[in-house]
């Protein structure tokens, strides 16, 4: 019996492993990352939107609340998915079942786990954002071209939180901080980063905080793409800001994974 190996890239093998595991247990993660945001869009956009539109909100630049909300919600759900999809698999792989630790007995290195993990998260985000975009079109919240254009900013927003969350989660030995982050970090971010209303309505200091979050930049980009409205800052600035979080988080994750797993 001889070992035959084909040419491969280790990170892609990690990506493949995640896909194989997902194929087995896809139902619940799919429901939480795709169906839940759609319920939000229907309830808030159609229900609440009806009230808002009747009063004629000036900030919506003539469009409907539904059209305002849809790209924001696309980015915000990508942010949420980015946290969930990044945190729990890392927790599971490193601390609970330790399948990531077992993977390191093969030729893989910690950086391959990071790269493969983030690639997988990117695919999940892409699928989630695309599903959301289709639904937005069906609900009449966006035109097809605009909805398709908003997918990119959505994926970038998700990755901008997924990378630093992976980097941080691997350093945790217990759950409580992660739960605190989700409860007291993600939820306010979801509500106050321009998703449901423009951050101009926030008081000054809070506005600065919102503007520093990756989500606000993602929302601005997604909205600019979906409703052809100029973003708050030049698009390149928003993109660069998201890219900084992605690349920064990714490099730190390579470092923290190695420190936690190689000892």
């Amino acid at each position: 019996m001889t070992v035959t190996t084909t040419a491969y890239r280790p990170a892609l093998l990690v990506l493949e492993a995640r896909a194989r595991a997902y194929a087995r247990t896809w139902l619940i993660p799919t429901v939480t990352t795709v169906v839940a945001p759609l319920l939000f869009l229907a309830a808030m956009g159609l229900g609440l939107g009806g009230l808002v539109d009747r009063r004629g909100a000036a900030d919506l630049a003539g469009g409907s609340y539904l059209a305002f909300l849809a790209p924001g919600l696309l980015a915000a759900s990508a942010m949420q998915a980015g946290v969930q999809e990044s945190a729990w698999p890392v927790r599971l792989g490193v601390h609970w079942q330790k399948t990531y630790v077992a993977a390191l007995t093969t030729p893989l290195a910690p950086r391959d786990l990071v790269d493969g993990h983030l690639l997988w998260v990117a695919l999940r985000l892409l699928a989630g954002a695309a599903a959301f975009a289709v639904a937005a079109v069906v609900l009449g919240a966006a035109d097809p071209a605009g909805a398709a254009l908003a997918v990119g900013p959505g994926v970038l927003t998700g990755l901008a939180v997924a990378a630093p969350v992976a980097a941080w989660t691997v350093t945790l030995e217990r759950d409580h901080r992660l739960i605190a982050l989700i409860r007291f970090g993600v939820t306010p971010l979801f509500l106050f980063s321009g998703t449901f209303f423009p951050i101009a309505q926030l008081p000054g200091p809070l506005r600065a905080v919102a503007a520093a979050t990756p989500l606000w930049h993602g929302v601005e980009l997604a909205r600019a793409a979906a409703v052809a409205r100029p973003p708050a800052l030049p698009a390149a600035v928003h993109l660069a800001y998201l890219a900084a979080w992605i690349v920064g988080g990714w490099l730190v994750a390579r470092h923290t994974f190695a420190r936690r797993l190689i000892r």
Partner: protein
Amino acid sequence: MSDVIEARGLVKRFGAFTAVDGIDVRVGRGEAFGFLGPNGAGKSSTMRMIGAVSPPTAGHLRVLGRDPATDGPAIRRRLGVVPQEDMLDTELTVAENLLIHGRYFGLPVRDLRPRIARLLDFVQLADRAGDRVEPLSGGMKRRLVIARALLNDPELLLLDEPTTGLDPQARHLVWDRLYRLKQQGVTLVLTTHYMDEAEQLCDRLVVMDAGRIVAEGSPRDLVAAHATREVLELRFPPGGRNGELAALEGIADRVEELPDRVLLYTADAERAAAAVTARGLRPDGVVVRRSTLEDVFLRLTGRSLVE
């Protein structure tokens, strides 16, 4: 041919704590080598360094002729590892766990499928291939981990407590499989808390204590060097032992006091037993037996093998 494992002055520190304190180990090709030692002795730390997943703090280490510090992936490609913890994906099936792990080696799926079937046969799990791992018994999971370690057809198999938690039948199955692998030329390195396992499987072993090697040799040599030929085991009623210990003075070469029994080391245990009776002592239980590795272990580490 060069040694499969060559370690000199190997040290592992975690912060200020020294887990492995300068050990020398050589393991030749095809050999079965064991690490014995009480909890915390540094066995797993050593295994992880050999497995190229934990960088040594100091010392010289070569595995399969290569340096783990620089050639980790190349070494791990040729290793099979049974870690102390199973580390299985319990949501997935038995076969899926193996497929995913095999893919990490870059092995093509079409080669892996028949290999997985063969390995599941080998560890007698073929009928569970499509079952989720979660409800499997501890012994089945352990056998699955052993199958996982064989996916890449390793030259060197590192087994950290391969049979802990297994029932006697499952342990014998594992021993038989490991023996067959040895016959095929696979080098085995294992840790264990079971002296019968060490005696069954190991050509040579070391006893570790507090990060150091305190004895080395074949099981038979170790018994000859560190224990008397026979042992007399006495059981006294709980609490009523103090006077008796003094009364045993001079009967044996050495007396070892355990929580549940007293061991008398002597060349002739029958005669010692007669002497105990002659002194008017009435233990609850008397056992005459030959010395084993467990006695060596007790002597060297002051602790029993299974804690």
